[in-house]
């Protein structure tokens, strides 16, 4: 009898001790980033690599760019030479502005274009461990609307160095996963 009692007690304490075991798995799809792919302007079907692209959010306190290369040095970790990049949208505002600096670090060839994305947000439940995630909807182009809406605004930098982005297209306005391209930029 006593053995059973002590066993049951041990069993119940054992159960109560393993309650806080939830950690949000990194593979769980949570708040997605905006996926941008670069293509050649002359041949829009061919993916193009950017050269030393640095992306900095407007109003970021530290002034640091998005880290594309975790293992890089203080300079190179902000640079990418890929044909696809993912940038986070703000989960606390309906608009975000980024400076896209091509040939960053090269004082002569550097060229900055600024893109502002406008979107609406949804909060979606994920799980106990992960909590909620935010999904985004890029606004549809409706310049006659009230207020007028555009999914993005492309502006040149104050240096007036011209656009290195020849054209910007919305491929998928529902930003729910990072497995697809949302914005296509022709360079």
């Amino acid at each position, binding site marked *: *009898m006593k053995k059973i009692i002590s066993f049951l007690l041990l069993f119940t304490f054992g159960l109560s001790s393993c*309650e806080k075991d939830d950690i949000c798995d990194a593979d769980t799809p949570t*708040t997605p980033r905006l996926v941008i792919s670069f293509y050649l302007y002359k041949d829009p079907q061919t993916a193009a690599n950017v050269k030393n692209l640095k992306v900095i959010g407007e109003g*970021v306190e530290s002034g640091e760019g998005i880290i594309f290369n975790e293992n890089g040095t203080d300079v190179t970790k902000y640079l990418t030479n890929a044909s696809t990049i993912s940038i*986070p949208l703000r989960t606390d505002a309906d608009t975000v502005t980024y400076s896209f600096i091509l040939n960053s670090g090269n004082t002569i060839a550097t060229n900055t274009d600024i893109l502002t994305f406008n979107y609406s947000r949804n909060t979606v439940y994920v799980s106990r461990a992960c909590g*909620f*995630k935010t999904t985004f909807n890029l606004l549809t182009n409706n310049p006659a609307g009230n207020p007028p809406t555009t999914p993005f605004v492309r502006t040149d930098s104050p240096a007036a160095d011209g656009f290195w982005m020849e054209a910007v297209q919305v491929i998928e306005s529902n930003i729910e996963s990072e497995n697809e391209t949302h914005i296509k930029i022709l360079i």
Partner: protein
Amino acid sequence: MKHTLKYLYSFCLLFSMFLVKAQDTTATAPPEEIALKKTKTEAVKTAKTAKPVIQKAVNDSIKIKTDRYGLRVGVDLYKLTRGFYDKDYKGIEVVADFRLTKKYYLAAELGFEDKTTDDDRLNSTATGTYIKGGFDYNFYQNWLDMENVITIGLRGGFSTFSQQLNSYKVYNPNPYWGEQPSIISERKYDGLTAGWGEVAVGLKAEVFSNFFVGFGVQLKLLVANKKPDDFDNLYIPGFNRTYDGNFGVGFNYTVSYFIPIFKKKVVTPEITKKATPKK
């Protein structure tokens, strides 16, 4: 406090009346039927002081045992007392079982819970009532007139409850724009239901006459779960915390009172053989 005491006293009085009644019926049992083998009485003497049922031994007689049948009602002290030290919890559970046959008991639990679950990213409160019904099988062989039970049983449970999401955090694996603070929410989800089955293992020991202390653990399997559209049932009253799978666990610590209703005589089989030619 004064009122509580008053009720406590009246309860005790009520119970003492049952006690008296129980004693009466015991006395009316015909003495010639209640007898024991000499050797058995020796054992009893060492194990437990004899009750009125066990009479002086007559050699070569039939051992007859009376099993009491009745309703046992109690309360889960674990849930009741948890409210005192855990500000996030209020709950009560009333337990009852009724002895159907020698080994089978009809069992039911009825409860109310109000529990605030605080996870890293979510804070939610579940409030609701539940009912569980099923049976217990007693596999403990008692000595003589002892009435302790060690049971294994099955239950079906059903809960109707509501949930309120108090606050939540948005998970952002790329906190370039900084970590967003927790968002206060007042979202309430009503009309939620859940159903489950459970395997319950427990024991109840008689500590005083008719008073039982017991505890048990339950393993639960969620069968039906009506979730809100944009949230999950993180805690279901009666089922407790939900996990990724359908499994759940429960624990209770009960104090219960046995109300005897009728008795059945039990003749131990091996002695019956000997006894039959005598009659």
